[in-house]
């Protein structure tokens, strides 16, 4: 009887409603993120094609607009091959770890004022924690394939990700000091109080360190050593095919979007416009969902920056990657913490 009373009580109904709302929010965020991943691949091929004076995908649909759907269908129906001596459970689980760790990071990102799946006080640390878990997916995929190229790719990835995680964490400390909070919503609101409405101006050193280490964390060119195709075939996912390969691909793109979101939230003012622009055109604030559009516009600029870098810069040598991380980025980030701390005390 007690259980029945509990179910009929007000408290249970509220809890039930909360859970339903959270599930709807998760569905919306994951759905929109997946759509973005699909068209991020299309946009990448298109924009890199244009930069290299090619057309990019043109065949499927108008200007290749249906290409991502065709690619997805193809990957779903491809044969799933598992190497004979692979460590099967680990081989199955590693693409899932990558997908999980990147998708979960989306849950703490505030997309516009008041819209975030989980408004937690340690949002920034949560994303750092999840990106360090993603390294397992790469390392274990390389090891469990029982093949030399994936193994080398996995080893490279683990060393690279550990090194650049330090630089990325330290670069965000400047933002934490200025905002006085680890809650991503509070960080955005703290930036609105600043004259330019963005931390990228006072934290320019940190922003540079963050952008470079975000490229390295997501294994994008010029830091794509773990999947350097002319040395390692395809790096850590060489032995994966079909839907498991697709999971790696999705995880990588979601990771890229998460890092771009972090740049927008921590350095570019999130969903807000700089105060001086609002002063010139005050009516923008009354447009419905304007915050979401501003956020997305900033996000697309960041993602385009990834493509731009990829089309411009050649790949680093492995020892150069390590030297850059430990000898340049980490000292710069430490210097930035020192300067920010001193200014915070004096001001």
């Amino acid at each position, binding site marked *: 009887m007690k259980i029945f009373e509990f179910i009929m009580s007000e408290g249970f109904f509220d809890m039930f409603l909360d859970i339903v709302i959270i599930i709807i929010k998760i569905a919306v965020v994951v759905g929109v993120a997946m759509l973005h991943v699909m068209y991020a691949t299309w946009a990448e091929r298109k924009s890199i094609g244009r930069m290299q004076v090619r057309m990019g995908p043109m065949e499927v649909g108008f200007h290749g607009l249906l290409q991502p759907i065709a690619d997805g269908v193809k990957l779903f129906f491809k044969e799933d091959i598992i190497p004979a001596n692979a460590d099967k459970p680990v081989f199955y689980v590693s693409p899932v770890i990558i997908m999980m760790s990147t998708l979960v990071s989306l849950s703490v990102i505030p997309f516009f004022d008041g819209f975030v799946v989980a408004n937690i006080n340690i949002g920034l640390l949560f994303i750092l*924690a999840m990106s*360090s878990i993603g390294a397992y997916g790469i390392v274990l995929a390389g090891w469990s394939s029982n093949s030399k190229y994936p193994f080398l790719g996995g*080893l490279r990835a683990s060393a690279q990700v550990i090194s650049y995680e330090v630089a990325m964490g330290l670069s965000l400390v400047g933002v934490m000091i200025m905002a006085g909070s680890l809650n991503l919503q509070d960080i955005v609101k703290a930036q609105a109080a600043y004259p330019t409405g963005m931390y990228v101006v006072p934290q320019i050193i940190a922003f540079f360190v963050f952008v470079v280490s975000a490229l390295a964390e997501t294994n994008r060119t010029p830091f794509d050593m773990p999947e350097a195709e002319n040395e390692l075939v395809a790096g850590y996912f060489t032995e994966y095919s079909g839907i498991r390969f697709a999971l790696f691909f999705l995880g990588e793109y979601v990771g890229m979007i998460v890092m771009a979101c972090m740049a927008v939230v921590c350095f570019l003012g999130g969903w807000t416009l700089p105060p001086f622009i609002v002063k010139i055109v005050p009516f923008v604030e009354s447009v419905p969902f304007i915050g979401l559009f501003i956020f997305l516009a900033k996000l697309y600029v960041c993602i385009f920056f990834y493509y731009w870098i990829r089309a411009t810069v050649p790949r680093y040598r492995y020892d150069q990657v390590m030297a850059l991380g430990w000898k340049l980025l980490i000292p710069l980030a430490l210097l930035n913490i020192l300067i920010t701390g001193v200014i915070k005390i004096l001001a």
Partner: protein
Amino acid sequence: MTLNQVFFGYFAFVIVLTSLLVVTRKNPVHSVLWMLIMFFHVAALYLFLNAEFIAAIQIIVYAGAILVLYVFVIFLLNLKQEIGDEQRVGEWPVGLAIALSIGLLMLIPMAGIKVGMMGKWGVKAIEDETHTVALGKVLYTDYLLPFELASLILLVAIVGAVVLSKKKKKVEGQ
């Protein structure tokens, strides 16, 4: 039984189960993976204590850095030989008996545990200040000296590791 107890029971059960799996797996990589799951559940226990900062650090430092280094070392072992080896030494029942009796000895004083005095940082105070702020304030005011001493000891360890791993210069004439 409240909802909190149900969750605590789940986390405690999984921690015990995965800890057992860690020590009984033949393949060290599988052990590391079970340990990863255990670390997540330990972090969840910290969340129960309103210690969100410690929970995040638990994942970043233990799961993200230390355990990856374990994986690194294990990769350099000869795993095929490791898996083929006999897992237990012949005298394992003796070891088990000793371990169990030490465990029992530790259980006896549990009955005498008394809840200590409530300090300044109760659940309410931490919820008001947020855990990170509270921890920072305590560490950098009341416990500044122990905190700095601990960091000095860690620094010595780092410098020591660098010195030990540095290649010695060749003596002339050799």
